[in-house]
C-alpha cells in the first residue's frame, strides 16, 4: 500500500509539474515547490539567457523527490552572505562566458579592494554584497529602470544601509548623506527631475569599488564634469595651498553631498547653506585674499547687472510691439560668455575674470543701445501721434462748423429748386 501511495504522489507531482511553469525546457523540480521564487526569477535577466537554479544552488532538478536537494547532488542551499561575491564571480569574472554578453568582468576584482570588500574579508557580514544592490532572484540589468542598481534608484539603494543610524552605529561615519543629497542640486536633478546627467552615488564613489575619494583627489572627481572649474583651480593659489594643508578642495567651499548651486554670496560669507565655507570661513576680512574676493564680486556684479539691464530693456521693447530677435541673440551671446565667469573665478585672478566680464559687458551694452534707440523711436511715435490727432481734431471741428453753416443756409438753395 505504501508503494501505491508513493506512486500516487509521483503522479500528483507529475500533474503539478506539467501545470506549473518550468525554469527551462523539460521538468524542473525546484519550481514545483518554490513557485513564488520562480515567478520572481522568470522576470530576471538570468532567466532570459537560460541560467537555471542549479547554476547557483546546485542540486538535481530532474529528481522529483526531496533527494533533489541533497549534498551528494551538489545542493548548496541558501548561499551565505560571505560566499555570495565569489559565487557571482564564478561567471561574472569569466571572460569567455561574459564576452558574448559584452559585460565587464572586473567587478569582483574591484569589489575586493573596496571598503565593502575589505570589511567582508575581515569577517564583517553587515556590509553590502552583490545581492544587496542587485537583488537575489529578480536581478535585472542595471540599465533597466526597475533595477535597484539603475542610476536614478541607486541613491535610495545605498541609503538602505547608509541612512540607517542603528545599522551604521559601529562604523562611526555620518548617516545623513542621503538626506543632504536629496536637498542638493545634484540630488534634485536625479531624484526629482530624473536627469541622468547629474551624478548619483556611484559617479563620485565608484560602483563596485565604493570608496570615498581621497582628499587630494576631489578636484579630479568633480572635474570629470566640471572641467573648466578644475582647469582654473589648477592654476590658482588655492591648489597648492589646499594640497599642503590637506584641505578638501572643492568640498570645503561647495560641500559634498549637500552641494547647492554656487552663488555670488559665497565670496562674502563665512558659512554656506550647502555645508561648505565661504571666503570668510578661512580668510580674515582684513586680509589681502579677501580683498581679491571683493574685487571679483565687483566684476561679476558689473557683468551680471549689465546683462540684467539689457534683458529688462529688451522685454520692455517687446511689450511695445517691437521685434527683438537681434537683441535676444546678442543677449544669448552675452549670457554664454557670462556662463564662463563662475568657472573662471576659480583661478582667483582678477585679470582673467575682468577679461571675461568685459566681453559680456560689450555685448550687453550693445543690446542696451539697440533697445534704447527703439524706445526713443517709441516716444517719437507717440509724440507724432499726438500732434497728428490734434491736427485731425482741428480739421474735424472746422468741418463741423462748416456743416452747421451748410445746414442753416443750404435750405435756401434747396427750396429754390
Amino acid at each position: 500500500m505504501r508503494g501505491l501511495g508513493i506512486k500516487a504522489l509521483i503522479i500528483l507531482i507529475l500533474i503539478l509539474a506539467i501545470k506549473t511553469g518550468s525554469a527551462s525546457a523539460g521538468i524542473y523540480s525546484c519550481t514545483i515547490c518554490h513557485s513564488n521564487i520562480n515567478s520572481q526569477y522568470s522576470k530576471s535577466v538570468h532567466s532570459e539567457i537560460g541560467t537555471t537554479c542549479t547554476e547557483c544552488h546546485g542540486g538535481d532538478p530532474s529528481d522529483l523527490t526531496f533527494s533533489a536537494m541533497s549534498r551528494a547532488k551538489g545542493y548548496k542551499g541558501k548561499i551565505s552572505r560571505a560566499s555570495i561575491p565569489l559565487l557571482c564571480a564564478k561567471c561574472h569574472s569569466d571572460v569567455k562566458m561574459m564576452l558574448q554578453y559584452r559585460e565587464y568582468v572586473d567587478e569582483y576584482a574591484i569589489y575586493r579592494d573596496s571598503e565593502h570588500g575589505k570589511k567582508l574579508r575581515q569577517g564583517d557580514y553587515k556590509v553590502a554584497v552583490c545581492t544587496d544592490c542587485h537583488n537575489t532572484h529578480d536581478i535585472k540589468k542595471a540599465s533597466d529602470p526597475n533595477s535597484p542598481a539603475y542610476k536614478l534608484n541607486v541613491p535610495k539603494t545605498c541609503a538602505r544601509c547608509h541612512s540607517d543610524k542603528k545599522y551604521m552605529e559601529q562604523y562611526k561615519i555620518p548617516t545623513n548623506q542621503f538626506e543632504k543629497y536629496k536637498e542638493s542640486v545634484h540630488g534634485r536633478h536625479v531624484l526629482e527631475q530624473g536627469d541622468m546627467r547629474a551624478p548619483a552615488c556611484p559617479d563620485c564613489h565608484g560602483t563596485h569599488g565604493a570608496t570615498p575619494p581621497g582628499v587630494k583627489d576631489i578636484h579630479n572627481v568633480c572635474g570629470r564634469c566640471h572641467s573648466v572649474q578644475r582647469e582654473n583651480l589648477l592654476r590658482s593659489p588655492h591648489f597648492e595651498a589646499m594640497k599642503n594643508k590637506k584641505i578638501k578642495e572643492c568640498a570645503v567651499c561647495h560641500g559634498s553631498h549637500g552641494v547647492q548651486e554656487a552663488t555670488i554670496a559665497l565670496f562674502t560669507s563665512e558659512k554656506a547653506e550647502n555645508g561648505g565655507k565661504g571666503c570668510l570661513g578661512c580668510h580674515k576680512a582684513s586680509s589681502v585674499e579677501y580683498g581679491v574676493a571683493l574685487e571679483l564680486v565687483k566684476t561679476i556684479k558689473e557683468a551680471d547687472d549689465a546683462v540684467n539691464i539689457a534683458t529688462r530693456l529688451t522685454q520692455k521693447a517687446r511689450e511695445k510691439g517691437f521685434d527683438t530677435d537681434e537683441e535676444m541673440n546678442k543677449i544669448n551671446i552675452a549670457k554664454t560668455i557670462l556662463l564662463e565667469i563662475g568657472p573662471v573665478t576659480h583661478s582667483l585672478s582678477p585679470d582673467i575674470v575682468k577679461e571675461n566680464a568685459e566681453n559680456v559687458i560689450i555685448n550687453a551694452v550693445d543690446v542696451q543701445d539697440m533697445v534704447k534707440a527703439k524706445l526713443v523711436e517709441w516716444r517719437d511715435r507717440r509724440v507724432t501721434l499726438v500732434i497728428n490727432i490734434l491736427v485731425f481734431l482741428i480739421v474735424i471741428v472746422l468741418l463741423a462748423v462748416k456743416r452747421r453753416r451748410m445746414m442753416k443756409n443750404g435750405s435756401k438753395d434747396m427750396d429754390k429748386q
Partner: protein
Amino acid sequence: MKKILKKLVDVEWKELLKTGLEKRFNFSFEAQGARIRKFLITPVAEQFSWLNFFGIVICLLFVILLITGLSLALYYKPIADDAHLSIKYIMNSIPSGWLIRSIHHWASTLLFIFVFLHFWRIYFTGAYKYPRELLWFIGLANLALVFLFGFTGYLLPWSNNSYWSTQIMTSEIKDIPLIGDYIMLFIRGGEGVGSGTLTRFFVSHIVILPGLFLAITGIHIWMIFRQGLTKWKSVSPKNYRYSVSVMLLDINILIFVLFALLISLSVFIPAGLGDIADPLRMPAKIIPAWFMMPIYNLYKFFPREIFIFNRGTLFAMSSSVIILLLVLLPFLDRNEQYNPLKRSVIAVIGIAGLVLLLFLISYGTGR
C-alpha cells in the same frame, strides 16, 4: 524771337485747354458743372440716418486696405520662409513700414466689425424685403468675399500660428461629403499647406478677391442708387436740409475720424508677428483668426458621429441649411412691416443669432 515769346504769353492757356477738351470729347464744362451743382443740393432721402453710414465706412475702409495692401505688396515675398522674413523686414527696416502694416491690420479688423454691423442693420430694418431681394444676395456674396479676404490674408505672414490654423481649417473642409477632397486640393494647391497654398492665397488676396469685390460692390451701390433707401421708419419732412453736399461733408469727417482711430491703434497696438512657420512643430495653442472662431467653434460643438453621418457631414448639412435660410430670407419674410420693434419673430431670431455669434467668437482659445 521776342515776337514768338509774346505770342506764347498772350495765349489764354486755361481757355485753350477747356475748349480743346470740350471739342474732342463732345461735352460742355458748363453743363456738367451745373449737373454736379444740382446733384450736390439734392436732398438725401428722409430716412437717412447714422445707421446708413455703415456701408459707407465699409467702402472707405476698403480703399484704405487697397492702398496699404498695394504698398505692402511692393515688399512682400510670397514664398514660404521668405514671406515671414520680408514682413519682419517691413516692420523693422522700412520707414513707416510698421505703420502701413498696422493700419492694414486694424483696417481689416474694423472692416469685419462694420460688415457685421451693416448686416445686422439690414436684417433688423428689413432692408432685404421686396424689391431689394437681389441686393440682399449680392450683399451676402460680399460677406463671403470679406471672409475669404480675411482667411487668405491670415496665412500670408507665414507665422507658425497662421500656418497651423490654416492647416486645421482646410482639413476640416475635407469632411464635406463627395466634393470635400477636391475643394481641399483646390484650396491648398497640394496635399498639405505649403508654398503652393501661399501662392494661391496671395493671388486670391490681391487679384481675384479685390476684382470680385469691386465688381460686386459696384453693382451693389448702383442698385442702391436705382432703388433708393428703404423706408423703414417714417420721418416727418419738416425743415429738411440734409443735402448730398452735407452728406459728403459727413463722409469727410468720417475719413478723418477713421484715420485718427487707425493711427492711434497702430501706434499703441502694432500688428504682431509670431515665430516663423515650422511644419515640424505644432504649437501647443493654435488660435485661428478671430473672425474664423464662430465657424471653428461651431465645428467643435458637433458630435463626432450621429448614425452614419460624421462631424464634417453634419456641419456641412447644418451650415447649408442656415445659408439657405439666410439667402431665402426675403422670400420667407414677405410682410410690409419694417420696424424691428413690431416684428418680434425676426427680432428674437436676430438677437439670439447675435448672442450666439458673440459667444462663439469668444469661446476657448483654440486646440
